[in-house]
C-alpha cells in the first residue's frame, strides 16, 4: 500500500513536465504569431523600423509610415489572424466529427458553398458588407444541411457524408467559375479571391464580422470542448459518457459552419488552411488533449506566414490562397510517408 506513494509522486511529476512542455509549445506559437504580426507591419515597399512601428502603434504620427502601417498592413494582419483562426477552428471540428483528417470543410464543400453565395452576392447582385456575410453563412448552412439530407439513407455514415460533400463541392466550384467568367475582366482581383482566397485590400470594417463570429461561435465551441473530446472516442463511448449526441453534433457543426462561412465571405476559400491546421494542432497537442485552441493558433500562423511569403518572399506577388494551396501537396506526400511508417489507419 505504502509502495504507491512514490508512484503517484512520479505520475504527478510526469504530469507537471508534460504540462510545462505543452505550455511551452503554446507560448512558442504565440511568440511566433507576435513575430509574424511585427514582420507584416514592418515590411513593405518601404521598410518601417521597429522604433517607428512602436511609435505609430502608441499613437504618434510618423510621416510616410503611419498610413502604410495603419491603413494597409494592420488591416491585412488583423484579417489574416482572424480568418486563420476561424478556418483552423472550423476545420478541426469537421475533422473530429467525421473522424478523417482529409474531411475538412474545404474538401467537402462547405467553403465552396459559402464562397459561391458570396461571389454571387458580390459580382451579380452588387452587395457588400454584412449582407454578404449573412448570405455566405446561410449558404454554408444550407450546403451542410443538403449534404446531410443527401447522405441520409437509414441513418448517416461519415463516409457517405464526405463523398456527397465532394460531389456538391465540384458543382459549387463550377458555379463559381461560371459567375466569374461572366464578370467583367477588371474584376480579376475579385476573381482571384474567390478562386483561391486572398486578403488583398482588407479593411478593418471587413474584419469586424469575422471577429464577432469568432467570439460567438469560437467561444461556444471552446465552452463545449469536453463534449467534443468525448465524441472523438466514437459515438457509443460518447453516449455512454453522457454526451447528448444529437444536440452536441448539431451545435458543433453549426458553429463550425458559421466560422468557416463568415471568414470565407471576406477572404474567399483560402485553400488548405482548414485542412492543414487540425492535423498539425493534433500533432502538437499530443493524444488525449483537445486541439481546438492550437488549431486556431496554427490557422492564424498559416494565414499570416502564407500571406507574408506571398507578398514579400517569393518572386512575384501571390494571394495567400496560392501559397497555402501549394503547401497541400507536400503535406499529402508527408501523409503517405508517415502513414506507411506508423501503419496508422487513415
Amino acid at each position, binding site marked *: 500500500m505504502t509502495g504507491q506513494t512514490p508512484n503517484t509522486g512520479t505520475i504527478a511529476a510526469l504530469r507537471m513536465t508534460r504540462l510545462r512542455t505543452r505550455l511551452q509549445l503554446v507560448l512558442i506559437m504565440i511568440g511566433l504569431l507576435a513575430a509574424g504580426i511585427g514582420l507584416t507591419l514592418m515590411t513593405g515597399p518601404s521598410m518601417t523600423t521597429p522604433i517607428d512601428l512602436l511609435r505609430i502603434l502608441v499613437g504618434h504620427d510618423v510621416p510616410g509610415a503611419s498610413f502604410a502601417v495603419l491603413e494597409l498592413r494592420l488591416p491585412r494582419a488583423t484579417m489574416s489572424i482572424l480568418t486563420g483562426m476561424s478556418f483552423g477552428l472550423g476545420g478541426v471540428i469537421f475533422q473530429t466529427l467525421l473522424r478523417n483528417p482529409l474531411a475538412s470543410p474545404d474538401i467537402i464543400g462547405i467553403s465552396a458553398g459559402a464562397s459561391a453565395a458570396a461571389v454571387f452576392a458580390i459580382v451579380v447582385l452588387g452587395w457588400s458588407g454584412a449582407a454578404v456575410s449573412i448570405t455566405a453563412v446561410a449558404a454554408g448552412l444550407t450546403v451542410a444541411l443538403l449534404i446531410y439530407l443527401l447522405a441520409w439513407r437509414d441513418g448517416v455514415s461519415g463516409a457517405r457524408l464526405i463523398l456527397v460533400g465532394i460531389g456538391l463541392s465540384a458543382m459549387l466550384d463550377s458555379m463559381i467559375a461560371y459567375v466569374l467568367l461572366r464578370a467583367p475582366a477588371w474584376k480579376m482581383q475579385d476573381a482571384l479571391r474567390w478562386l483561391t482566397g486572398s486578403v488583398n485590400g482588407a479593411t478593418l470594417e471587413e474584419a469586424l464580422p469575422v471577429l464577432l463570429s469568432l467570439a460567438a461561435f469560437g467561444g461556444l465551441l471552446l465552452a463545449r470542448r469536453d463534449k467534443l473530446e468525448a465524441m472523438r472516442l466514437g459515438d457509443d463511448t460518447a453516449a455512454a459518457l453522457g454526451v447528448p449526441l444529437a444536440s452536441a453534433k448539431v451545435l458543433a457543426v453549426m458553429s463550425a459552419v458559421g466560422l468557416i462561412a463568415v471568414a470565407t465571405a471576406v477572404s474567399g476559400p483560402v*485553400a488548405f488552411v482548414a485542412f492543414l491546421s487540425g492535423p498539425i494542432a493534433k500533432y502538437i497537442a499530443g493524444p488525449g488533449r483537445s486541439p481546438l485552441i492550437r488549431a486556431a493558433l496554427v490557422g492564424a500562423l498559416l494565414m499570416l506566414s502564407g500571406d507574408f511569403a506571398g507578398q514579400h518572399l517569393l518572386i512575384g506577388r501571390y494571394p495567400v490562397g496560392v501559397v497555402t494551396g*501549394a503547401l497541400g501537396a507536400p503535406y499529402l506526400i508527408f501523409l503517405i510517408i508517415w502513414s506507411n511508417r506508423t501503419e496508422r489507419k487513415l
Partner: protein
Amino acid sequence: MTAIGSPGVTVAAFRRSRRGRVVWLLVVLLLLGCACVVSVSIGTRDVGWADILAAVRGKTDTMAQAVVAVRMPRTVLAVIAGAALGLAGAVMQGITRNPLADPGILGVNAGAAMAVVIGIAWFGMETLDAFLWTAILGAGLSACFVYAIGSLGRGGATPLKLALAGAATSVASASLTLAIILPRNDIAGGVRSWQIGGVGGASFDAILPCLPFLVVGLIFCLLSARSLNLLALGDDAAAGLGARVAWARGAAAIGAVLLCGATTAICGPIGFVGLVVPHICRLLVGVDYRWILPFSALTGGILLILADVLGRIVARPSEMDVGIVTAFVGAPVFIWIVRQRRVRDL
C-alpha cells in the same frame, strides 16, 4: 421456374444477349449521329440543312456556312474528347474496382493541366507535341500519386479514400497552376483555359497531332478488356484464373493515362464524363468490359457533344465552357451512385 418469366430476369438476359447488345449499339450510333447534327446546327446562330450540307462540302460563302465550318472541328473534338474520357473512366473504374473513379475526380486531369502549365512557364514549350508529352507525363504522375495516397492504411484503396485523395490533389494542383500562371500574362489561354476545360476554338490542325496518342491509348484500353473482367472478380480470383494482376493493371492504366493526358492537353481539365458514362453503359449492356469499353467511348462522345450544345443554349448569346456543364450534370450522378452503395462498400 416462375422467376424466368419475371421482368427483372428478362431485362438482365436481354442485356447479356448478343441481339440486345447489337440493338443498343445501333441506337447509340444513331444518337451519336443525331448529336453531331444538333451540334453543328445549334448555337448563337441557328442554321438550316442546306447550309450544313454546303459547309460539309467545304463552302464558306454565307455567314451560316462559315458558322458551320467553325462548329465542325468543335464537334469532332467533342466526340474525340468525350470518347477518350468515357473510355478512360471505364478503365479506371475497372482497375480500382471503384464505382466513383473518374479522371476528373481522381485529380488526373488537374495534374495533366498543371504539367502543361509548368512546361509552358518554366521550359518555354510552344509546340502541341511538347504539350501532349508533358500532359501525359503529368497525368501519369498524378495518377500514381493519388493511388498511393488513396491506398494508405488499412482496407486498401477504398472509394472514399481515393475520392478524398483525388479531391485534395486537384485542389493542390489547381493552386499550383494558378501560382504559375498569375505573374505571366503571356501564357496561352491564361487562367481560364487551364482551370476549366472547354472545346471552343478547336481546329483540325490542333486535333491531328493528338490522334496517334489517342489511338495507342485506345488500343491499350480495349486490349485490357478481358483482364478487367478477371480483375472484377478480385485480385486473388484473377490470379487464380491466370491473369498477371500487376501487369494487367499497369497496361490498362497506361492506356487510360494516355487518353486523359492527350485530352487535357487540347481541352483543359474536363471532369465527370468518365464517371457517368460507364454507369449508363452497365445499365445498357451488363457488366462485361468487352462491351462496356466500346460503349463507354461512344456514349462519352454523345455526352460531351450534348453538354457542349447545352452550354451554348443556356448562356446565349455567350457560351458556358463544357467543363462547367459536365460538373453540373455529373455531380448529381456522383451523389446518386454514392447513395446506392452500402456503407461497407465505401
